[in-house]
């Protein structure tokens, strides 16, 4: 079962702002538990946090510095 890791639509307020992943706290292929903090997303100057929606193996799809929008899938958990 694969769970997508999606940038939540309520992660930041302004809809016209984009973000970018600054840091993945786990390497591609690492085991993560549901609720673990797995990434930092920077929107302008504010650092926001992304948690694992499920437990399993993390497969990173979007690297740091790439622009992300609300609703984007940035990884999956297998």
């Amino acid at each position, binding site marked *: 079962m694969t769970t997508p890791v999606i940038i939540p639509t309520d992660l930041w307020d302004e809809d016209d702002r984009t973000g970018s992943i600054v840091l993945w*706290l786990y390497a591609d292929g690492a085991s993560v538990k549901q609720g673990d903090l797995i990434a930092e997303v920077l929107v302008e100057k504010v650092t926001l946090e992304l948690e694992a929606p499920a437990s399993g193996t993390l497969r990173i799809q979007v690297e740091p510095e790439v622009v992300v929008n609300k609703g984007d899938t940035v990884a999956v958990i297998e």
Partner: protein
Amino acid sequence: MSRILTMSRAGREALDWEMERRDDIFCLGEDIYKFGGIFGTMDGFGAKYGPERVISTPISETGFIGMAAGAAMEGMHPVIDLAYIDFIGVCYNVLLNTASKTHYMSGGAVKVPMTLLIGTGGGYNNAAQHSQCLHATVAHIPGVKVVYPSNAYDAKGMLHTALRDENFTIFLTHKATAGVGWMGTPIKTTLSEVPTEDYTVPFGKVKVYREGSDVTLIGLGMSVHECLKAADALEKDGISAQVVDLRSLVPLDRDGIMEAVGKTGRLVVTDEDYLSYGVSGEILATIVERDLSILKKPPVRVTMPDIPIPFSRPMEQAILPLAGRIADAARKLMA
């Protein structure tokens, strides 16, 4: 596999772990309650520990750092966030004459256990009064321990050590290594796998990041990472560079320095503090005093020059101890 953390998160974990278990620790600093400090060292602590243990202060450094010293004398272990080392000017007396000397002047009767977290460094155009390193200025004071980790694993371990130490410790973090997102993407070599449980990294030992046989590059804080970039470039030229992180200024690992430099005989000392009267000179003095014969060539220092730090990018970039300058210095030693 452990999580990969930034230095900022790793240090915060250590402080959080200690604060959960000990009533003697409390925090002081500007904007720490709501903001977690300018560099996020205490992010979330206000909500978790409340305003009595996470005290946002007025802009009164002599006042609140002096108070911290007094609280420490009365059995607390205050942790102070002083965002920029450039600000030690307004509170230097507490560091110089109170927090560091009271244990000695009292013949050991009084202890001053406190930890002062300070951000250092430039490279992002914040000009002369907000870009300095000044680690020599604090390391020069007798009676204070000074540590300066450059990666997340060391940050957490050394902060645990500082918080368990009964002495006044200054814990420095270069702003460009902290990994706060608004200083650009965290530098890969500052990130580490960090265990969730507590652990300590002792003071007084250098860290060899990378073994090498031709030339030794010694760094501190951000310059360690520039040395690592330089080492990659040198490898392409067939030069094997050893990269050593001092990470502890007081106590200073003089044996470790001698051992590292002894392996190559060619030394580039990098330091983002000003050239004269500082850490880079202390390294050279150590070698000269103990055994000059380990050097095959006169050593080279790559440091900030003795000038106020200019704002404009072409000028600032030219004087920083960056990878290109470090690699060029190493190549000259090999010629």
